[in-house]
C-alpha cells in the first residue's frame, strides 16, 4: 500500500517542480515509402506518417489525464530521409509531405530529415544537405540532422566544412525570423538511432516500425531534492539524485508501456535525459548551483555536471528495462533560465560549455552567435565538438544559430526555445584548417575487434 507521503511527494513534483514527460515520440520506418518517383514517394511518406501516428496526440492526452502527469510534446521521428528519397530524388516535396502530415495529426515536430555522412557523402546525401536552407525556411515542423563523425569512422571534414556554409545559408534564409531555421538543425557525432528529443530525432535503420521512445524530464524535481541535503558531502548528493531519477524514470516507463499498448506499437526506449525549459524552476543550471557553485560556469561546473549526469543514469537504468536515446543532462543555453543568466553575468562562455559537453549529453545546444561569424569558424566549432564525441565514445552535437543581422544582445524565440544571448566566438581564423578537407581518422580505441 502506498502511503500518503509518497502520494504527496508525487503531487508536489507535478504541481510545483515541473515534473512532466517531455516527449512521447513515435519512430516510424519509411523504407516502405521508397519509390522511383518523387511525387509518389512524398505521397507514400505522408500516408505512412498519418496512418501510423494518427492517434499519437489523442493517446498522449488520455494518458496524461489518467495519470495526472503532463506530456509536453508529441513527436514523430522517421527513417533518415536521405535514404528514403535516394531512388526518387525530390527531397523538398518529401519535407513538405512530412510538414503537412505533422500538422494533420497535430504533433509538435517531426524529425528525420537526416543524412548520415560520417565516413562519406553520396550524391543523394549531398542533395539533401543542399536542400536544408529551403526546407528549414519553408516548413514549420520538420527537424533535420546530419551526422558528420563517429568513433568508428572518424570525422568527415568535408561534411563539417559544408555544414558551416549550410548553417549560414539557413540563417540567411530565415533572417526575418531571427534565423530560426538553425534551431531545427543538429549536427551530430555518434548520433543515436532511438533519440526521442528534437531537433535531432530520427528512426535509425536498425529500428522497428512504429516504436515508442519516451523522454523524461524533471530538473526542478532534482533541484528540490538536493535542497534537502544542503551542505552534505557528495555521496549524499549522488544518492539523492539517483533516488529521484529512479522515480522520474519510472513515470516515463509507465507512460511508455501504456502508450505502446494503446497504439499497438513497439516499446523502444526511455531516454533518461534531464531536459530544462525556460520556465523558472525547470533548470539544469540551478541544480549545479544547488551543489554549491555561485553561478554555473564557475570552476567546478564540469565536475558538478559529471556527477549529475552519472547519478541520473545510475538511478534511471534501475527504473527502466531499456534505457537509450541520449540519456544525460541537456545544457541548451537559450532553453534554461539559469544558463541564460550565467551567460549574461559573464560566468559562462562558449569554452566552458565545450568542456561541459565532454561529460554530459549532448553538446553545444541552442547557442546564438553573431551573424557575421565566418562559415569556417562555425565548421571549426562543429569539428571541436565532434572530436570530443569521437574520442570519448559519446554523442555530441552542435545546434548553433548565427543570427543574421545581429552581432550582440538577445534573440527571443519564445516557447520551449526561449531567449538566446548572443555569445562570443574566437576572433581568430580557422579557415586554413577547415579548407584542408578529407577525413580525420578514427581514434585508435575504435579498433576493438
Amino acid at each position, binding site marked *: 500500500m*502506498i502511503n500518503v507521503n*509518497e502520494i*504527496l511527494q508525487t*503531487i508536489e513534483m507535478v504541481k510545483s517542480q515541473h515534473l512532466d514527460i517531455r516527449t512521447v515520440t513515435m519512430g516510424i520506418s519509411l523504407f516502405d515509402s521508397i519509390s522511383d518517383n518523387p511525387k509518389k514517394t512524398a505521397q507514400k511518406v505522408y500516408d505512412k506518417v498519418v496512418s501510423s501516428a494518427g492517434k499519437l496526440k489523442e493517446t498522449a492526452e488520455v494518458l496524461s489525464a*489518467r*495519470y495526472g502527469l503532463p506530456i509536453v510534446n508529441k513527436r514523430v521521428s522517421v527513417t533518415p530521409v536521405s535514404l528514403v528519397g535516394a531512388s526518387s530524388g525530390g527531397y523538398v516535396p518529401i519535407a513538405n509531405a512530412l510538414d503537412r502530415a505533422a500538422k494533420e495529426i497535430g504533433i509538435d515536430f517531426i524529425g528525420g530529415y537526416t543524412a548520415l555522412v560520417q565516413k562519406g557523402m553520396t550524391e543523394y546525401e549531398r542533395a539533401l544537405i543542399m536542400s536544408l536552407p529551403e526546407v528549414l525556411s519553408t516548413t514549420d515542423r520538420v527537424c533535420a540532422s546530419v551526422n558528420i563523425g563517429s568513433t568508428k569512422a572518424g570525422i568527415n571534414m568535408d561534411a563539417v566544412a559544408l555544414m558551416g556554409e549550410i548553417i549560414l545559408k539557413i540563417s540567411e534564409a530565415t533572417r526575418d525570423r531571427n534565423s530560426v531555421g538553425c534551431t531545427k538543425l543538429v549536427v551530430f557525432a555518434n548520433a543515436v538511432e532511438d533519440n526521442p528529443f528534437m531537433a535531432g530525432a530520427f528512426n535509425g535503420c536498425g529500428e522497428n516500425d512504429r516504436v515508442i521512445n519516451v523522454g523524461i524530464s524533471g530538473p526542478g524535481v532534482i533541484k528540490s531534492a538536493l535542497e534537502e541535503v544542503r551542505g552534505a558531502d557528495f555521496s549524499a548528493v549522488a544518492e539523492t539524485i539517483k533516488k529521484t531519477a529512479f*522515480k522520474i524514470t*519510472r*513515470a516515463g516507463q509507465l507512460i511508455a508501456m501504456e502508450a505502446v499498448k494503446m497504439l499497438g506499437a513497439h516499446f523502444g526506449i526511455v531516454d533518461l535525459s534531464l531536459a530544462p525549459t525556460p520556465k523558472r524552476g525547470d533548470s539544469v543550471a540551478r541544480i549545479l548551483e544547488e551543489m554549491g557553485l555561485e553561478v554555473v560556469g564557475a570552476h567546478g561546473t564540469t565536475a558538478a555536471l559529471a556527477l549529475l549526469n552519472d547519478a541520473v543514469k545510475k538511478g534511471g537504468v534501475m527504473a527502466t528495462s531499456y534505457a537509450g536515446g541520449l540519456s544525460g543532462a541537456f545544457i541548451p543555453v537559450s532553453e534554461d533560465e539559469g544558463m541564460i543568466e550565467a551567460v549574461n553575468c559573464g560566468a559562462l562562455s562558449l569554452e566552458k560549455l565545450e568542456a561541459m559537453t565532454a561529460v554530459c549529453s549532448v553538446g553545444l545546444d541552442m547557442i546564438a552567435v553573431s551573424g557575421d561569424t565566418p562559415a569556417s569558424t562555425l565548421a571549426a566549432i562543429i569539428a571541436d565538438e565532434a572530436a570530443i564525441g569521437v574520442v570519448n565514445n559519446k554523442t555530441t552535437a552542435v545546434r548553433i544559430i548565427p543570427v543574421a543581422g545581429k552581432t550582440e544582445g538577445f534573440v527571443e524565440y519564445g516557447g520551449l526555445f526561449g531567449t538566446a544571448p548572443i555569445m562570443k566566438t574566437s576572433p581568430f581564423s580557422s579557415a586554413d584548417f577547415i579548407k584542408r578537407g578529407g577525413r580525420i581518422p578514427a581514434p585508435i580505441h575504435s579498433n576493438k575487434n
Partner: protein
Amino acid sequence: MRAVISVIGKDKKGIIAKVSNCLYGVNANIEDISQTIMGELFTMIMMVDLKESSADISQLNDLLQQIALEMKVEIRVRNEEIFTIMHKI
C-alpha cells in the same frame, strides 16, 4: 481499479461532504482518507475503489471538476498506478 483523489486549496466547509457525496452517487468506494497541510494549503487525499463504480476515471474527473470550480479548489484524480510505480521497486 483504484484511483487517488487529491484536493488542494484553502480549507472550506463542505469539501469532504461534496466529494464524498459525488463518489457515493457513482457507487465508488472510499477506502482511505487523510488530510494534511502542504505549504499553506489544505490537502486531502482519498483512496477510492472504482471496481463497482458506474463512472470510469475520466467521467469521475468531469464530475469532480464541477465541485472544484464551485469550491475554488484544485481536484485531481489519478490512476493509483503512477504512485505505486514511482515509489516501489
